[in-house]
């Protein structure tokens, strides 16, 4: 399945409003701003849970696309570093396989807003794939 269709088939992805775009063979998740993504109304800023969700989804989508996992990859553990305030604007995320084992894959992902060189958050995580 192509990544855009895969993401569209995930109800929580549609709740976040995140979609997948492939350009020059690279998958990027795009999440337009929406009011229900807010965690802090005074700044306003995206919720930390939205950030974690987008990064985890970027990792899963990259894995589903690049590996021949039967069914969706399952997260074992993730760690999110929050680097900057995620403002109420469009956000992007991309995952990258750092090390692929037979069952466990180590993935890194970054999320950014208007400047890709200034990530707002980063994920590292281990995921189980079913062969």
């Amino acid at each position: 399945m192509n990544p855009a269709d895969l993401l569209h088939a995930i109800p929580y992805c549609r709740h976040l409003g995140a979609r997948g775009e492939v350009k020059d063979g690279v998958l990027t998740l795009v999440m337009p701003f929406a009011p229900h993504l807010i965690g802090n109304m005074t700044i306003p800023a995206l919720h930390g849970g939205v950030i974690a969700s987008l990064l985890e989804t970027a990792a899963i989508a990259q894995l589903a696309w690049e590996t021949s996992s039967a069914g969706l990859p399952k997260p074992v553990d993730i760690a999110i570093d929050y680097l900057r305030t995620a403002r109420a604007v469009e956000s992007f995320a991309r995952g990258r396989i750092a090390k692929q084992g037979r069952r466990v894959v180590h993935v890194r992902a970054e999320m950014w807003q208007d400047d890709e060189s200034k990530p707002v958050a980063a994920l590292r995580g281990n995921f189980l794939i079913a062969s």
Partner: protein
Amino acid sequence: MSDAPQNWLDQAAHLMQQTPYLAGLKGELLEVSAERARTRVPYGAHLIGDPDTGVVHGGVVSGLLDHTSGMAVMGKLRAPMPIATLDLRIDYMKPATPGEAIIAEARCLKITHEIAFVRGAAFHGDADDPIAICTATFMLIHPARSVR
């Protein structure tokens, strides 16, 4: 005089209840105190991460744990102060059971002038059989000091 902190905490809890992301999940705050914070999210079709199994997306669990951890920090504060998550680590111990509500519980183990350290867990009915556990650190954002 001792009820003043709880008073602002009740107001903060009310505000946190209205946090758009939590409201979008249809989540609710069950408890916030110096001891712990607890939240609950009922199962819903919009939370599904794997359409084949109906299992809730990991992001919902991590989002709820992030929110609950933040509330646990609030419970330790003597006065309202903005906080920001620095780091959130989640161990997914088992998939959430489709159809069942998820409860998150967090305790702030240590709070300093700048940083708060939290442990939390998400589970269905039994806290000893968690879906996920978390370790989180938060930064306390002090208002900019005025020039003397």
